[in-house]
């Protein structure tokens, strides 16, 4: 009796054996979509709006209405771009991990995030019985609001900035610190020890890394002599800071990047929400729309930090041929991609390592960089 010969099954294309080039193409396509969207948006001011609707001009010139319109615009942008960023992140993660990522909803899963958002909106709004209801409810907003505020001063171009604040950098520093209030409120409000630990960790982490980050940003301020973000970009028209002043700006950028990662609670500094230790940290008990807010804030901060890095070090909206906002978008997405690359590559630090790294290395290093910048200014630009 002879048994039929063993046959290997025919290879099938599964999600786990996808083509890397294919995924990269999808990623590129996503970037192209975003760029196109921004291009369209950048064309909008060139359209003859004034001819279309004089009433709109009237409304836009009134300070209060002007402010409201700007606020609304910023809010909408923050909300919308996060949808794209989340999709991008998932695709990127898929690419890094040699899989496809979301594929089914919309073209290449482009609408997956919207579906998820709808799902979150539909979910039951759970508030734990023993929770501190007020703080539990307020916390997501406290986390999201500062991030939203930072976008006010982020210059997409010379004119595309909601509030060209002369003390922009200081404003950014002041506002971003307040995120820790939200994490504290969330950690406390849930009445859960993991949440509390996560909240405390997040607070300590943000406060600690704020210092080298601020000093690194002050180095840029020293170099430029202004705190206005638009002014800083304009001063870079003869060369990006990181190239023109490479000896001091490259270290400053590195410090800024590390601190930015920590401020964003991203790997390798994602201790406050370390899933394996703290079961997602301060938003363990959150679900539904409240959880969405945390997520929203996190991704918006991601984009903002990248945009700030671009503004400070990579010439902001400056660039040839293309409109200014498109350049800004390209550069920012590149930095965001850098963040994602790090996130999906590096393992998490231990909590004592993280604090020690900040206080023992980053703070002194940032001070050294700051002093070096002052010397550089004195020597190179008398």
């Amino acid at each position, binding site marked *: 009796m002879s048994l039929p010969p063993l046959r290997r099954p025919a290879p099938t294309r599964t999600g786990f054996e996808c083509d890397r080039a294919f995924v990269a193409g999808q990623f590129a396509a996503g970037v192209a979509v975003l760029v196109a969207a921004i291009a369209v948006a950048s064309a909008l001011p060139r359209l003859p709006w004034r001819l279309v609707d004089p009433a709109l001009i009237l409304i836009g010139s009134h300070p209060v209405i002007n402010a409201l319109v700007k606020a609304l615009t910023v809010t909408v942008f923050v909300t919308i771009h996060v949808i794209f960023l989340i999709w991008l992140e998932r695709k990127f993660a898929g690419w890094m991990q040699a899989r496809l990522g979301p594929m089914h909803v919309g073209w290449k899963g482009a609408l997956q995030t919207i579906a998820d958002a709808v799902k979150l909106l539909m979910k039951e709004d759970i508030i734990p019985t023993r929770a501190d209801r007020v703080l539990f409810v307020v916390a997501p907003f406290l986390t999201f609001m500062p991030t939203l505020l930072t976008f006010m001063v982020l210059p997409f171009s010379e004119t595309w900035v909601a509030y060209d604040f002369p003390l922009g950098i200081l404003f950014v520093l*002041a506002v971003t*610190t*307040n995120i820790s*209030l939200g994490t504290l409120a969330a950690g406390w409000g849930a009445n859960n020890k993991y949440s509390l630990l996560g909240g405390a960790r997040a607070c300590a982490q943000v*406060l600690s890394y704020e210092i080298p980050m601020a000093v690194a940003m002050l180095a840029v301020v020293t170099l430029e002599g202004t705190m206005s973000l638009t002014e800083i970009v304009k001063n870079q028209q003869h060369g990006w800071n990181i190239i023109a002043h490479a000896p001091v700006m490259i270290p400053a950028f590195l410090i800024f990047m590390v601190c930015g990662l920590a401020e964003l609670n991203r790997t390798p500094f994602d201790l406050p929400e370390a899933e394996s230790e703290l079961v997602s940290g301060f938003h363990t008990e959150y679900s539904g729309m409240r959880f969405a807010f945390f997520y929203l804030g996190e991704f918006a901060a991601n984009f903002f930090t990248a945009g700030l890095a671009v503004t400070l070090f990579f010439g902001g909206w400056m660039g040839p041929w293309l409109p200014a906002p498109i350049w800004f978008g390209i550069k920012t997405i590149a930095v965001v991609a850098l963040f994602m690359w790090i996130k999906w590559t590096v393992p998490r630090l231990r909590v004592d390592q993280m604090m020690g790294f900040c206080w023992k290395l980053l703070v002194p290093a940032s001070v050294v960089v700051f002093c070096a910048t002052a010397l550089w200014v004195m020597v190179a630009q008398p």
Partner: protein
Amino acid sequence: MSSLAILGAFLSLAVLTLFPAVMVISTRNILHAGFWLLPTLIGVAGLYAMLDAHFFVVAQVLIYIGAILVLILFALMLTRDVMNPRAPQHNGLLTAAVPICASLAALSAVLLARHPWPAGRPPEAAGAHDQTVALGRALIGTYALPFEAASVLLLAALVGAIVLAKAPQTEPPSAERTDCSGGEK
């Protein structure tokens, strides 16, 4: 803006400042009292903005909210096991202190309001950038000494805080541990 709008802004900021301050005093939950401090501080920042003190608006947010308030809340969380919202939150001075503090505020308010201050508001303060530049020059120029004194104060506070907060190296035996609160509880 019209003067009415300014008055409206002022009044709403005053409410934003004072009502949470009342809540800071009266709330039983000490952590909530800490969070009530947030609108008060924001209100004060808004008043700074009305006074054209642009730098201090941001500094208020950065230092008072970003640093001090967070520090306070942090301390409250570290000591949460002694927090009991059901225990009385005010000492026996409450009945005496309310009229005292009310008369303090009322007396100062009356005296300050009656004083013949120069009427009107000087036309324009310098812009945010110029103001900050002037402040920076003042701090490293005319007022370098106060500035250095403040930095020394901060350093001393830093060292003092470390010394105070550092746990004792060797715990004395619990039997011999002195009870500083005295035997007259």
